[in-house]
C-alpha cells in the first residue's frame, strides 16, 4: 500500500517535471526563438539586447535558467511577467482561475445530467427513432467547432434575437464575479455553459449509450432479468451503475483538461478572462514566465484529477480495490 502510494507519487512528480522541461525546451531551445529579442523590442540595439540578456539570465546555461524559473514559480512565487514588467504571475493566475472554474463547473453539471439522461433513454429505447434521433443530435454536437458555436450563440442572443423576450435577459459579453452579484454571474455564464457543454453532451451520451448497450448483452444483466427485476431497475441499478466506472474516468480527465485551460476557445469567444485566455495571451506575447506558470497550473490540475479518478475508481469498482 505504502509502496503503491509512493510509486504513484513518484510518477506524478515525474510527469510534472517532464511537462515543465518540455515546455521550457519548446520555448527556450527551439531554434530561432530567442526571448531576448522579444523583450527588447523589434529594433533594439545590441547594447539593449545584451542588457536584457543579462538581466533575465538568458546568458546562463539552460539547466540553470530552468532551475531559477522553477524556484521562482514554486518556492518564492515571485516570478514576474517579461511583457508587463513586474506583473507577478502567480496572482494573475489566481485571479483567472475562478472564472474558468465557474465556467467549467456549470458546463460540467449540464453535460453530466443531460448526457446521462440522453444516453440512458437512448439505450432503453434502442433501435427506435428516439434512440436514433438522440444519437444523431449527439453526433451533431460533437461535430460543431466550439468557437463557431459560440459565435452563432452570440449572434442569436446578443444581436438578432436580443430584443425579443427570449434573450433580452442575456447580458453583454464578460464575466461577473460570483461574490459581487450571484444572479449576474449566473446570467453571464448561462450561454457559455451551454455552448461549452454541447460537445461533451454529445460525447458522453454516445459513450454511455454504447456502454449500456454492450452491457445489456452481459451475463449479469441476464441474471438481473431472470431475477424478475423491473426493466428500469435493471437499467439503472445494474447497467448504469456499472457504466459509471468508464463514465467517471472519462469525466475526470475532461474536467481537469478544461479547468486546466482547455476551455480557451470558449473563453476567447465569450470574453471571459479565464486561465485559458490568459494562457493564450501569454502565448501570443511569448511571455515565458506566464506560459510556464499557466502550463504548470494546467498540468498540476490534470495530474491531480488523474489521482482523484484513481481514487474514485476504488469506490466504483471493487475489482480495482483488490488489484492494488
Amino acid at each position, binding site marked *: 500500500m505504502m509502496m503503491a502510494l509512493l510509486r504513484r507519487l513518484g510518477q506524478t512528480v515525474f*510527469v510534472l517535471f517532464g511537462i515543465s522541461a518540455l515546455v521550457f525546451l519548446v520555448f527556450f531551445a527551439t531554434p530561432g526563438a530567442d526571448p531576448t529579442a522579444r523583450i527588447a523590442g523589434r529594433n533594439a540595439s545590441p547594447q539593449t539586447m545584451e542588457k536584457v540578456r543579462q538581466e533575465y539570465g538568458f546568458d546562463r546555461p539552460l539547466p540553470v535558467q530552468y532551475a531559477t524559473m522553477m524556484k521562482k514559480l514554486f518556492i518564492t512565487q515571485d516570478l514576474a511577467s517579461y511583457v508587463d514588467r513586474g506583473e507577478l504571475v502567480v496572482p494573475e493566475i489566481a485571479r483567472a482561475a475562478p472564472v474558468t472554474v465557474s465556467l467549467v463547473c456549470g458546463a460540467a453539471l449540464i453535460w453530466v445530467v443531460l448526457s446521462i439522461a440522453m444516453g440512458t433513454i437512448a439505450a432503453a429505447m434502442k433501435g427506435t427513432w428516439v434512440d436514433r434521433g438522440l444519437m444523431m443530435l449527439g453526433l451533431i454536437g*460533437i461535430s460543431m467547432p466550439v*468557437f463557431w458555436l459560440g*459565435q452563432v450563440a452570440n449572434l442569436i442572443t446578443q444581436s438578432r434575437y436580443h430584443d425579443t423576450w427570449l434573450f433580452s435577459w442575456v447580458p453583454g459579453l464578460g464575466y461577473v464575479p460570483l461574490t459581487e452579484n450571484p444572479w449576474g454571474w449566473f446570467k453571464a455564464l448561462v450561454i457559455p455553459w451551454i455552448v461549452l457543454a454541447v460537445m461533451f453532451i454529445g460525447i458522453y451520451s454516445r459513450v454511455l449509450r454504447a456502454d449500456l448497450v*454492450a452491457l445489456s448483452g452481459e451475463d449479469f444483466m441476464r441474471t438481473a432479468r431472470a431475477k424478475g427485476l423491473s426493466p428500469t431497475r435493471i437499467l439503472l441499478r445494474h447497467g448504469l451503475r456499472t457504466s459509471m466506472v468508464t463514465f467517471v474516468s472519462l469525466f475526470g480527465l475532461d474536467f481537469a483538461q*478544461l479547468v486546466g485551460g482547455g476551455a480557451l476557445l470558449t473563453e476567447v469567444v465569450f470574453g471571459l478572462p479565464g486561465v485559458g485566455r490568459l*494562457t493564450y495571451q501569454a502565448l501570443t506575447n511569448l511571455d515565458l514566465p506566464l506560459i510556464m506558470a499557466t502550463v504548470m497550473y494546467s498540468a498540476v490540475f*490534470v*495530474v491531480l484529477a488523474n489521482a482523484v479518478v484513481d481514487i474514485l475508481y476504488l469506490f466504483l469498482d471493487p475489482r480495482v480495490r483488490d488489484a492494488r
Partner: protein
Amino acid sequence: MTAEAPPPPGPWRQAMRGLARNRASMAALAVLVLITLSCVLAPLYARDIARTDPFTSNVAGSIMLDGHEVDIMQPNDNPLHLGLSPIGPTGHAAYLLGADSQGRDVAARMLYGGRNSLLISSCAAVLCLILAAAAGIAAGFFGGLVDAVLSRLMDIMWAVPVYLFAISLSIVTVSQGLKLGPFVVEADSLLIPIVIIALVYVPYAARPIRGRVLALRQAEFVTAARCLGVPRWRIVLFDILPNVTTTLVVLGPLLMALSLLAESALSFLSIGVQAPAASWGTIIQDGEGLIYTRPMVAIAPGLAIVLVVLALNILGDGLRDALDVRDAARRSS
C-alpha cells in the same frame, strides 16, 4: 473434399459489404466525396463562375448585379451611414455568399479554404496513425522499458490540454518557422499544422492500439509463432500489424474529424493556415468581426466544418460496426 465451394468472402470484403448496406455511412461518404470534389475544383469556380480572385483585396471594386453596378463595400444601414460593410449574400454567381472585410468572395474562398482544411486534416490523420501505430505497437509488443518510457511520454502529453499543446507548438513555429539542420520549414508552410496536429493526437490514437497489441501478444497464434522461433520483426509485421489494421481503419475518419476541428481552431486563432491562404478556420476568424452585420461570412465555413466532421464521424461509426472494433477510442476534447 472434391467439390470445392467458392471460398467465403474474406473479412475485409465482408466488412465492406456491411458498410455498403449501411445507408447513413454511404450518405456520409457521398457528402465527403462531393465536398472534396467541389474543393478540388475551386480554381474553376473562382475563374469561370464567380469570376473573382479570392486572394487579393478588392475593397474598391464593384460587381454587376441584375444590370446594376454595385459596390462591394457598402455603407452601413445605420442612420448616419457611417462606415462600410462588405456586401452580403447576393444570390448570384458572383459573391454568392457575400464578401469578407477585404472585399473577397467568401464562396470562392471557402472552396479554396476547404482544400487546405481537408488536406491538413487528412494528412494529419494519416501521419498521426503512422506515429501512433509505431508507438502503440512498440509499447504493446516489446513491453518493459520501451513501454514504460513511451507510456510516461504519453502521460506527459495527456497532462496538457490538447488545444493548449497544439497552440504552444504552433505559436513557436508559426512565428519563426523551423530549422532542423538542413531542413527548413517556412513559417507559412502547411506542414507545420499537419505535424503539430498529428503529434498532439498521437496519445489519443496510440492508447487503443497499445491495448489491442497487448491483447494480441497474449493470443495463441503469437505464442505459437514465438515457439516456432519466428523472428520478432516478422511477428510484428505479419501477425500483429494485420490484426491492428482494423483499429487503424476505424480510427482514421475519427482522427480526421478531430484534426479538422483542431485545424480550424488553430486557424481561428491565426496560428494555423497563414494569410493569404485560407482555411475554413481563417474564414470564420475573418467573419468574427462581421458576425453581427454579415453573419454569413462566419456561418458558412462553420457549417462546412460541421458537415464534414459529421460525415466523418458517421463514416467512422459505420466502419466500426462493419469491422466490429469495439475498443477504438471515442473521446476528444
